[in-house]
């Protein structure tokens, strides 16, 4: 039996969800609905030699099998991306990442569709691939995208700031610090994967799409751009909002599966449901991160910071799908030089194709907020330790002062009332900073490892996705389109984290994490606590657990929840956030915290770990900082340094 009509109601009602009466995408059921199962590539890079579908078509319940060649006849083989690139809906000649969609099988129920997908035979001729974004820039690297006229894996190069001024500051600086940092790919891994139900009504020409997305506007842009080739009137595309089972930015993009479902509904004249399995989701969708960062900082001998330079190579995967920096409105960028009084800053990002699944915009991770803050806050800590100045004290000396009330950063952002000094001082008072430093010295003398990590951060929130996608749509049509100013908010704050490390096992315990957030008036304290606790967890998780591991050819070794580490309840800290606005609860501005706690927590935790190990000669540890990584560092230090030998600082390990 099927329900005669889907229910229509306000989505996201918690009182319905706790009673099991939410309506998530897999709960949508329409009369006559068919199920789409995708056949995906097991290889990261290969030529498609042939696709054999006859056996699948003979199986009971199978209605259609769709290949790239079928889509090409309709003009649907390729789809545009919001970043101005294109990607195959279903490829004809070549697959360019493991898990890529190759064939769509449509059948009367899930089991029949799965059986038929297993009966499709695709013959591949493996090609050499490249998984490492730095290697992808080598002149002799395999070409990820032979369909482009440019014979390089470089997608784009973007920069902001003053190159000459920055280089001049670096040439004259008394003190320089530099650090290479690897920010691995992570997966948002919402508990619900992606999915949709597409229903084409040939009588009315209406296309209705139920879909688990944060951004139907983005999907409308994509469908609008390709719809005319298959006779869909953009005015007659309707999106139906359902409850979204989590996303963290991973459900912004338009994935090929949605368009295969649309094509399947067009071909069969019936509603078609596509629900991605966890394994498919973790191979093909919702990635964030994937950055190789070289950061450097120029300062005077007394610790006065002059200039920062961050060069990032950003892994885009096999297509540039993100709402990436070179298309993002410039208003998002000026906060990226951090809360410090710098003379110059230079931020450079190179986007690079690799034989990995296309990366996304998830987790505030578009080579702008989280990862730039990570790099700058790591550099500030390294500078402080090199100079023997307390990391909090060095920050306070360099922060933009609350007076004068207006200050313009080297990247052009005008600070009005963001009082970083107050957030850090308040965090220090709340956690008892001076006392913790005394305790640390005592423990260190007793051979125990304790670290204190400080981070000050800014998050950037744009004024609503619909506005952002209007801008993107305008720029896709005309790259020079005038789009006006975007209203944005910049929640900010400071975190201090205390960690204890077990020198024997490498195990790490977060003893405390205190945050002071420059946010507006509290409306609902319990909701605000949730808005802080959740993002703290999503800073904690990539700092210590999460990493999508690829082999050298682009094979994804972390495509199930058995191999991708997500912290569970027993190992997660007890987040008891006490929102602490810098000036009591009377803040005049209405600023949402956004997901700003995740931006600060990740680097505060990393700084705390390095702080615990610095006296042993450790300058940096790449995230995720797992017990085995810490254990290896400690054992390596022991091996290099017999107990009686000299100064540990000489070893300068970097991991």
């Amino acid at each position, binding site marked *: *039996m099927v*329900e005669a009509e889907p229910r229509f109601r306000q989505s*996201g009602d*918690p*009182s319905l*969800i*706790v*009673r*099991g*009466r*939410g*309506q*998530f995408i*897999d*709960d949508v*059921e329409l*009369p*006559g*609905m068919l199920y789409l199962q995708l056949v995906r590539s097991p290889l990261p890079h290969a030529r498609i030699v042939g696709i054999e579908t006859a056996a699948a078509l003979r199986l*009971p*319940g199978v209605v259609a099998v769709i290949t790239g060649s079928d889509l090409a006849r309709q003009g649907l083989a390729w789809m545009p991306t919001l970043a101005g690139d294109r990607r195959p809906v279903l490829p004809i000649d070549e697959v360019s990442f493991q898990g890529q969609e190759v064939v769509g099988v449509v059948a*009367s*129920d*899930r*089991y*029949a569709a799965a059986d038929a997908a297993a009966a499709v035979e695709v013959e591949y001729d493996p090609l050499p691939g490249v998984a490492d974004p730095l290697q992808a820039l080598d002149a002799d690297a395999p070409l990820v995208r032979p369909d482009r006229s440019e014979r390089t894996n470089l997608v784009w190069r973007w920069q902001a700031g003053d190159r000459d001024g920055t280089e001049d500051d670096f040439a004259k600086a008394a003190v320089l610090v530099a650090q290479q940092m690897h920010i691995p790919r992570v997966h948002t*891994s*919402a*508990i*619900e*994967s992606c999915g949709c139900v597409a229903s084409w009504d040939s009588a009315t020409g209406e296309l209705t799409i139920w879909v688990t997305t944060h951004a139907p506007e983005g999907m409308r842009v994509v469908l609008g751009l390709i719809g005319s080739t298959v006779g869909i009137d953009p005015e007659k595309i309707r999106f139906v909002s359902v*409850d*979204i*089972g*989590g*996303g963290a930015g991973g459900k912004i993009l338009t994935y090929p599966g949605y368009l295969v479902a649309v094509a399947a509904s067009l071909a069969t004249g019936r509603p078609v449901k596509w629900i991605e399995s*966890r*394994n498919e989701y973790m191979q093909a969708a919702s990635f964030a991160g994937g950055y190789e960062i070289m950061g450097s900082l120029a300062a005077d001998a007394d610790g006065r910071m002059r200039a920062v330079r961050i060069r990032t190579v950003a892994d885009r995967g096999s297509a540039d799908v993100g709402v990436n920096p070179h298309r993002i409105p410039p208003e998002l960028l000026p906060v990226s030089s951090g809360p410090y009084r710098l003379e110059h800053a230079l931020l450079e990002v190179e986007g690079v194709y690799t034989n990995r699944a296309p990366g996304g915009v998830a987790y505030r991770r578009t080579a702008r907020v989280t990862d730039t803050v990570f790099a700058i806050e790591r550099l500030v800590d390294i500078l402080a330790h090199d100079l023997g100045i307390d990391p909090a004290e060095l920050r306070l000396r360099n922060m933009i002062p609350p007076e004068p009330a207006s200050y313009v950063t080297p990247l052009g952002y005008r600070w009005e009332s963001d009082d970083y000094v107050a957030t850090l001082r308040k965090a220090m008072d709340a956690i008892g900073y001076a006392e913790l430093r005394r305790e640390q010295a005592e423990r260190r003398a007793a051979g125990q490892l304790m670290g204190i990590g400080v981070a000050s951060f800014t998050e950037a929130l744009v004024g609503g996705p619909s506005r952002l996608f209007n801008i993107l749509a305008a720029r896709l049509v005309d790259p020079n389109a005038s789009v006006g100013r975007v209203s944005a908010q910049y929640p900010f704050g400071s975190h201090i984290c205390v960690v204890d490390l077990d020198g024997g096992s490498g195990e790490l315990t977060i003893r405390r994490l205190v945050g002071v957030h420059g946010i507006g008036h509290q409306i609902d304290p*319990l*909701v605000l*606590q*949730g808005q802080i*606790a*959740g993002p*703290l*967890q*999503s800073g*904690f998780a990539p700092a210590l657990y999460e990493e999508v591991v690829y082999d050298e050819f682009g094979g994804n070794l972390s495509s*199930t*929840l*058995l191999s991708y580490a*997500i912290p*569970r*309840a*027993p190992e*997660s*800290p*007890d*987040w*008891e956030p006490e929102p602490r606005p810098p000036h009591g609860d009377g803040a005049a501005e209405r600023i949402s915290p956004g997901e700003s706690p995740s931006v600060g927590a990740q680097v505060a935790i990393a700084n705390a770990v390095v702080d615990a190990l610095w006296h042993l000669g450790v300058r940096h540890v790449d995230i995720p900082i797992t017990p085995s990584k810490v254990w290896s560092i400690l054992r390596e230090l022991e091996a290099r340094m017999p107990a009686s030998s000299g100064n540990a600082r000489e070893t300068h390990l970097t991991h």
Partner: protein
Amino acid sequence: MLDAERSALPQAPGHITIRVTVNGDLHESEVEPRLLLVHLLRDELHLTGTHIGCDTSSCGACTVLLDGAAVKSCTVLAVQADSCQVLTVEGLSREGGVHPLQAAFLDEEALDCGYCTPGMLMSARALLLRNDDPTDEEIRHAIAGNLCRCTGYSAIVHAVRRAAGAAGEGAANG
């Protein structure tokens, strides 16, 4: 699937008749031996409150009680539930009412997207059936098989603690 198509499908020789009591109601179904319990609940009985989040029994979104024990219904065959009592999130509360656990999840803002919530509720229910006054650590271990990506777990722990303290919990159905 259209009924016409369903009847056109050849009846696999191995179809098995099972009788499962779900939320107090007896259901008789003829199922393929490979049919998962979660698909029996969702696709055949239309109890869509039990969610599917993974394919390796890792996430716990599909947790239901099978004869009082929390199980992941994506890893139980429907035929294994023959002659058993199944309790799903829809059965926690009777018509229009709210179970103390459900009320506590609402009061403590213990859900954001809500996708993991039904599984969390059922694991918490199984805990409170065997321990009506758990410590926070016992709560965290009881939901160790349930992943949440939104809350950071603290609010969920608070909600289970609140429900345990709520009067009449011991007499609640289940």
